[in-house]
């Protein structure tokens, strides 16, 4: 599979995750979201940016349970819960948001 961004072709794996983390740019998230018929709001971007900095620090994409807890600590309890995160990312907050963020599939998501 591949993704067309700004005239470039970016490789993805069979589940749609970017093959090369360094290929990511914000348009990647936009294009992926459009094909899921999802409008990216500031709240969506907050999670994407959070995941990118988490990966930067720990070199892993967090499991949903870990993401929920970490978001709660960083952005407040009203955002660190499954209901809020599933409203933003109905396909699974860790899986879907990690894909938009250009990260691999979360470690520990089963």
């Amino acid at each position, binding site marked *: 599979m591949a993704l067309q961004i700004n005239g470039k072709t970016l490789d993805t794996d069979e589940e749609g995750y970017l093959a090369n983390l360094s290929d990511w740019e914000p348009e990647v998230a936009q294009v992926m979201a459009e094909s899921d018929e999802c409008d990216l709001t500031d709240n969506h971007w907050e999670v994407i940016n959070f995941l990118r900095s988490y990966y930067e620090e720990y070199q892993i994409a967090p499991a949903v349970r*870990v993401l929920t807890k970490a978001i709660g600590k960083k952005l407040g309890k009203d955002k660190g819960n499954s209901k809020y995160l599933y409203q933003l990312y109905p396909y699974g907050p860790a899986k879907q948001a990690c894909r938009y963020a250009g990260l691999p599939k979360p470690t520990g998501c089963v």
Partner: protein
Amino acid sequence: MFRKKLMYLNRRAPYGTIYAAEGLEVVLIGAAFDQDVCMAFVGDGVYQLKAGQDTSGLGLKSFSPAYRALGDYDVTRLYVERESLEERGLDAGDLMPLTWEDEDDDWAEKSSIHVVDRAELTRLIDAQDVVFNF
């Protein structure tokens, strides 16, 4: 639900074989199952926790930072065998600082690393339901 006592026993240096990286991956995946999990580091396995590793000369991604996520995954007990450290000229001060936050103690930051002697580690291994050997 009955929680099994699981130990992930790490015996190999971090790079050169895939055991350490795959073992860590299994720990992080297994953490989703809410069991009573600990890790142990013996022999060359103690090198996995050594601070200041640089893999740029190997052309491999460093997975050392991922050990720091273990606390987020509720893996909060990492036993390191004292004799293995000493045999390699290391002590606790050479290891990465790894911590976890205790939710029941006002999120106090506590060290995950426990240096134990061989006899104590033997008792710990004995007390497990399952030992995964990497």
